[in-house]
């Protein structure tokens, strides 16, 4: 397995936020994680990224235990709901940021960033500053900035939460395209049932600090705790009423 999370526990002031977390993920796959606010999703992602230290348990990435590694040495990128583009850098430099940290040559950076701009469908925007872009464009730059560094694992914390429905749909398509193109392994946290089903190769549901990963989408849909059945009943009811 590419990613193995074993018995991770994390508490804040005697409150168990993450309780014996166990799951595995194969390389180049996306695990969608659903769950209510405050169930421990963000803490779980931050623990894997190294931004929060776990009380116990192991994080194994590509066969190596990475618990003691600094966030900068894990090659795991954590993306927030906000795009967090650097306001003092233009779009080109924002995307190139991770490559500049790695001190790659200018020729290499220019070539890779230009290719990424093309993949993100942002041609002609390279010289613009972040405040000149729309919300969807900013989120695309944020993706590009993360993916260009070729992370071993990409952690996405409700990345489309602040986007309107149309932009969100376009971003979902783009994300699928990019993860395939760059062979990204990722954990995708969302509140949206449909998004979880669309984005994930596997789906997990987090409740009170515990994560349950479903074997297949059918099992996820049939579990009454996930709320899918409730959603289906709602739309069916609406259909019957309109008939």
């Amino acid at each position: 397995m590419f990613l193995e999370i074993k018995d991770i526990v994390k508490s804040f002031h005697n409150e168990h936020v993450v309780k014996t977390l166990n799951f595995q993920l194969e390389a180049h796959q996306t695990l969608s994680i659903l769950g209510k606010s405050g169930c421990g999703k963000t803490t779980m992602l931050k623990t894997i990224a190294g931004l929060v230290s776990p009380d116990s348990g192991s994080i194994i990435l590509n066969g190596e235990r990475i618990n003691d590694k600094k966030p900068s040495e894990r090659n795991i990128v954590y993306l927030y709901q906000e795009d967090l583009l650097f306001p003092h850098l233009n779009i080109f430099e924002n995307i190139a940021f991770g490559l500049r940290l790695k001190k790659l040559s200018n020729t290499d950076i220019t070539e890779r960033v230009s290719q990424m701009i093309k993949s993100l469908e942002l041609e002609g925007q390279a010289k613009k500053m972040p405040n000149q872009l729309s919300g969807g464009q900013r989120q695309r730059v944020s993706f590009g900035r993360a993916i260009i560094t070729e992370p071993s694992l990409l952690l996405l914390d409700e990345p489309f939460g602040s986007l309107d429905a149309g932009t969100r749909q376009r971003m979902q398509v783009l994300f699928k395209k990019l993860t395939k193109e760059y062979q990204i392994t990722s954990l995708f946290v969302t509140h949206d049932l449909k998004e979880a089903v669309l984005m994930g190769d596997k789906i997990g549901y987090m409740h009170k600090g515990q994560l349950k990963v479903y074997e297949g989408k059918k099992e996820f849909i049939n579990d009454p705790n996930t709320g899918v059945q409730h959603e289906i009943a709602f739309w069916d009811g609406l259909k019957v009423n309109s008939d």
Partner: protein
Amino acid sequence: MKRYWKPFFLSFLVLLVLFPFTYMVLLSLMSGWQFPDFLPSYFGFKNWATIMTSEGGLLQSFVISVIISLSVAIVTTISGFFISRVVYYHPKSKVLNVLAYFPYILAPVVFAACLSFFFIKLGLFGNVTGVVVAQFLIAFPYALIFFSSFWNQKMKSYADLTATLGGSRLQTYTKVLLPMAKSMLLVCFFQTFLISWFEYGLTSIIGIGKVQTLTIKVFLFIKEANYYYGALSCCLLIFPPVVLLYFNKRYVFKKMV
């Protein structure tokens, strides 16, 4: 009708604001203006020429003031930026922020009197280093309070994101935090420079007359009723702030807008 008077009223207001400055410059060029004479007996650059001589000690005071204020502003801005971050992440950050207001509860003169014992013991009484330290004690809490608004959850997210993108702690500062705080750093430098530049009470007590900054000099001339030298030193006193204001307006406020 209202519109017709508007430009005149505004011009009048501008004149009203500019008059004291213009009059001060004119006064610095005069000498021997006794009542009831309509004009002064001398009008020229004689007073200004004394800057270059040791007679008034103005050039020396100007240089001392610049050294003190630059030292205070540089040390305060840099230390304020980094220490405010430590305060933000400290479990007792609220208490520490409240404590930062403490030096402003007391009048500077009272504050200086309270500190004087320690300054004597440390051999900092009556010298430039002592004045720099004393002014730092006033300016530093200001910088701390000023930068407290910079550190927030979003800045932490930026720092965390930089770390996960592969950035070291040094790179997080040099590539992200410092460039993002550039405008605030410049404004803080400007403000702390002004705090130090116009500081009188603390400087007069800790400096005990041996450290004669330009502000101290202005008061001395006014006490002596030497209005012409007083005006001259006032012109020198406002010169650096005007230069800083120009740079701030050009490079900071423009960007902020």
